[in-house]
């Protein structure tokens, strides 16, 4: 059984069915890419797993235990971290304070908190230089690094990232995704939602393509990378021009 298993997940926003039966799996050390156009349901999937949304039906199993109905903060305590879309760092707090909050669950062991912070700074040296700076004054890329670093503080077994390359210049996006690959190589299971399909597929092991709440393509990332249908899913293919 996979570390994280989602089966036939259905999620509603009021009367609108946003997820119409999503199933996927994640294993330690593997990156699973979740791709698709806007409004397809990628963010909804992550938010449901991390507990910010309740599914109408379906199962979410982590290490054999069901996560459905658990409160978000309890799910984090179990070892799943979610880096939300748009980073959502606490702008009025310093970099250091943001990381401290990342270590909220281990706050009673300040020695451990220090250790983990050091590890994050080693992974993202730019953050170390700016530890006393207000997070709101960081650049987009630095904020992304902070968001990831923050999520790593509780040493999660599953890390979920929602569009980490959003708003980043291509080179920076590449660097961030490289770091994500490193994190996976250390044994963390990763769910990566991305708009930037090519770069995401380049570092992933498996991939799912979601369209209008359903999975329309899935498989090994390498084979999907050269699959024409991925492009179609994003750009509507080579259809008739307006007026037809």
């Amino acid at each position, binding site marked *: 059984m996979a570390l994280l298993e989602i089966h036939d997940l259905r999620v509603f926003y009021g009367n609108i069915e946003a997820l119409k039966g999503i199933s996927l799996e994640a294993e330690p050390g593997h990156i699973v890419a979740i791709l698709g156009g806007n409004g397809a349901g990628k963010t909804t999937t992550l938010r449901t797993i*991390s*507990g*910010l949304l309740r599914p109408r039906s379906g199962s979410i199993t982590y290490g054999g235990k069901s996560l459905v109905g658990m*409160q*978000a*903060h309890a799910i*984090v*305590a179990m070892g799943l*971290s*979610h880096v*939300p879309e748009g980073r*959502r*760092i*606490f*702008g*009025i*707090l310093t970099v250091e*304070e943001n990381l*401290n*909050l*990342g*270590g*909220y*669950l281990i*706050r009673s062991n300040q020695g451990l908190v220090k250790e983990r912070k050091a590890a994050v700074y080693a992974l993202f040296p730019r953050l170390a230089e700016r530890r006393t700076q207000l997070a709101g004054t960081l650049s987009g890329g630095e904020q992304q690094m902070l968001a990831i670093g*923050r*999520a790593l503080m*509780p040493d999660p077994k599953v890390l979920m990232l929602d569009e980490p390359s959003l708003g980043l210049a291509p080179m920076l996006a590449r660097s961030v995704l490289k770091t994500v690959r490193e994190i996976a190589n250390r044994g963390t299971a990763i769910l990566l939602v991305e708009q930037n399909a090519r770069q995401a597929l380049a570092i992933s092991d498996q991939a799912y393509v979601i369209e209008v709440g359903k999975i329309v393509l899935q498989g090994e990332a390498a084979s999907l990378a050269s699959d024409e249908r991925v492009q179609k899913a994003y750009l509507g293919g080579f259809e008739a021009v307006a007026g037809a």
Partner: protein
Amino acid sequence: MGPFLEYTVIGLTVGSFYALVALGYTIVYGIIRLINFAQGDLSMVGAFLGWTLLVSFGFQRLPLYLALIAAFVVPMLGTAVVNLGILQFAYKPLLKKSMLAILITALGMSLFLQNSAELIWGPAIQAYPPNLLPANGLFMGPVHLTYVQIALVFVSLLLMGGLVAFIQRTTVGTAMRALAVDHDAARLMGIDVDAIIRLAFVLGAMLAAASGVMLGLYYVQIQFTMGFLLGLRAFTAAVLGGIGNIPGAMAGGMLIGLLEAYTTGYLSGKWEDVLVFGVLITVLIVKPTGLFGERVAERM
């Protein structure tokens, strides 16, 4: 020059009491965008609980520091329980509903506290033991400071300092500051948002209770209606400083205290409230984010 310094001293003393209540408003509002109308009345409840302890139960006959410690601690705990009750039974069920509904309920709560106090302690003015604290003082330059003033301001500053230290230096305090920005992101850190909200209500209540006891010790006379104007002044202070902004609330409290003192001293007590309200309305129209800027939850 004489009267000016005297008014300043009075203003700062009373201002520190307002600051405590303002902090209660600001902490709660910053996290859940709710004006807890009952905040001023919590102060009144604290004052009466202290009175009950000192006068009805005779604690005033104990050694001074024991009496005072009890007179502070017990009301603080009592009002914390009351405020938690208000949160659980009245506010929590309505937090997702309309703003109008919550405001009306908060108003109802304030009324409820006021009239319950009238029922329990009676409508008449009660008095704190007037000879509990030494009445004399000392001179600092041209200004006369009573020991009461010094002691109470000292306690206020201690409480405020404690709160600031908690908010700035501890992880839980930082979590509280984070809640003023983004609830969901906080949840994703493993922070139990509901628990922190409860903590905010407890802290707000304790500060209010402390200020109530201090008002009792300072002015001696207390009445069940004292919460109304106190609450409005403290809310004005919080808005003046920037709602949700903790140092702002403290500064705002001092400023309102000074405004009150100067108005009563130079003009007359009759126009004091009009001026305070005038300040409130002007701030809200001209610079609604206050002197030091707001800190309010953007994403709840």
